[in-house]
């Protein structure tokens, strides 16, 4: 068996070590003259180590940069222990940032005779941080701009709705009123047919007035501030149901207990008024009308359901029915202006929830909705 000689760790070995690192390593005397640099230093500043020995940073770098290096050297010498600082040095693509550890070497008497430096390039990290900061600032600015735009458009919508509610109804009153005056004061002069036409005018004026009111309700559902609080949907649904039952028809209500959600109670009442009101309306021809309100959790999200066994609808119109003034039934069949579900949709959306409709002609309809934001991949079924 052969034995290896003990390894001697000398100058060459140490040079090999410092030459194989991505850090920049150098040693200067207390006056700033270079004693030694590693290969990375040579590569970075395109210099040979033989040429650099004896020079100072002021021979190699611009004044302010060399001044900073020198100041850090002196600080490390003064402290006597390793010092960590950030320094900047020119690189191929502008200034690079380094994190540098500097420490003095002492002779037997304890006097510093040299200073060693190990610098690691952190430019990429710095630039990434800077980019993140810039993007953040930009995002914040954009959010502020969007918020301002949104506030402005809400204000405009508000002014528009206000003007509509004041100005658009006034001419309708004249049309309606003077038609009535004609019917009352000139009944004898007007043929039966003419009187019928006047009544048609009045009926349409009434419809127009209803549509204006509905539009205002829709805009109000958008404009009013949303105040979230724990809301008892069971109680609200029972209130609405009893109001509907007061109108005389016999309906079986199946309203589950304990339906609660954080939401705006006024707006959620409006949702239930519309959904239950629709269910009530469309079960008008059902033999044994049943309307139910229940909850079905779906992957952790509460999904509320209003279901009836009324006229139902054709599923191919399911998407259209939430658009304002969309109607799936003729006025003769079921009355309405077609704004209710648009209001419902708007309120649910403002809560961060979703809604869908399901139906079969002649068998009934179901509306399912959530009232809180769900994960992006969550789908309402």
């Amino acid at each position, binding site marked *: 068996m052969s034995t290896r000689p003990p390894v001697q760790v000398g100058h060459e070995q140490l040079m090999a070590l410092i030459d194989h690192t991505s850090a920049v390593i150098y040693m200067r005397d207390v006056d700033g003259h270079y004693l030694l640099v590693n290969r990375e230093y040579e590569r970075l500043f395109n210099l040979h180590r033989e040429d650099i020995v004896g020079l100072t940073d002021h021979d190699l770098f611009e004044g302010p940069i060399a001044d900073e290096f020198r100041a850090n050297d002196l600080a490390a010498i003064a402290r006597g222990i390793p010092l960590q600082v950030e320094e900047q040095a020119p690189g191929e693509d502008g200034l690079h940032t380094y994190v540098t550890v500097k420490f003095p070497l002492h002779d037997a008497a304890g006097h510093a005779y040299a200073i060693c430096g190990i610098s690691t390039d952190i430019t990429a990290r710095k630039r990434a941080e800077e980019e993140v900061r810039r993007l953040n600032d930009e995002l914040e600015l954009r959010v502020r701009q969007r918020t301002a735009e949104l506030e402005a458009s809400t204000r405009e919508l508000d002014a528009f*709705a*206000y003007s509509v*509610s*004041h*100005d658009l*109804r*006034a001419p*309708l*009153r*004249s049309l*309606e*009123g*003077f*038609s*009535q*005056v004609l019917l009352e004061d000139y009944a004898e002069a007007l043929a039966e047919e003419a009187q019928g036409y006047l009544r048609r005018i*009045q009926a349409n*004026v*009434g419809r127009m*007035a209803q549509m204006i009111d509905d539009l205002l309700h829709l805009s109000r559902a958008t404009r009013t501030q949303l105040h979230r609080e724990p809301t008892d949907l069971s109680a609200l649904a029972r209130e609405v149901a009893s109001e509907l039952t007061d109108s005389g028809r016999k309906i079986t209500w199946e309203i589950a207990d304990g339906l609660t959600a954080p939401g705006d109670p006024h707006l959620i009442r409006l949702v239930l008024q519309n959904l239950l009101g629709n269910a009530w309306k469309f079960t008008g021809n059902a033999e044994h009308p049943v309307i139910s309100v229940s909850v079905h959790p779906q992957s952790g999200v509460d999904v509320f359901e209003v279901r009836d066994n009324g006229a139902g609808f054709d599923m191919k119109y399911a998407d259209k029915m939430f658009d304002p003034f969309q109607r799936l039934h003729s006025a003769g069949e079921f009355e309405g202006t077609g704004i209710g579900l648009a209001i419902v949709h708007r309120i649910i959306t403002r809560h961060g929830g979703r809604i869908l409709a399901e139906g079969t002609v002649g068998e009934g309809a179901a509306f399912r909705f959530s009232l809180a934001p769900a994960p992006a991949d969550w789908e309402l079924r």
Partner: protein
Amino acid sequence: MTERPILLVEDNPDDVLLTVRAFTKNRIRNEVVVAVDGEQALQRLLPDAGEPLRPALVLLDIKLPKIDGLEVLRRIRDDDRTRNLPVVVLTTSNEERDIVASYRLGANSFVRKPVVFEEFVSAVNTLGVYWLLVNEPAPSG
């Protein structure tokens, strides 16, 4: 029924005609004095010189030329001579802010004019019966 006039503050001539007709249909025979803007209404009620109008009831529209109805109401309530005057806001809108502002400024009632004339006639009847017949006005009013 009191014989004092009714002040109708209304800029729309059609509405004036229909309101007067509604009074007639309800056999309310008080004289109807019309002011077509807020400035005229204030000149009638709080004139710089001459005899002020002392109506039994003011029917006040909100959206008016020159001085709007809410400002008219504020000045009526600010003045000792008209502080107790019954003022019914009779307007087209039912915007919550108008209702809140009207009551805050001391309106006695807020009535939204119905589009259907027969409903309007019935609203005017109720107003007339209440403010001209049932209600006992303030002695100084």
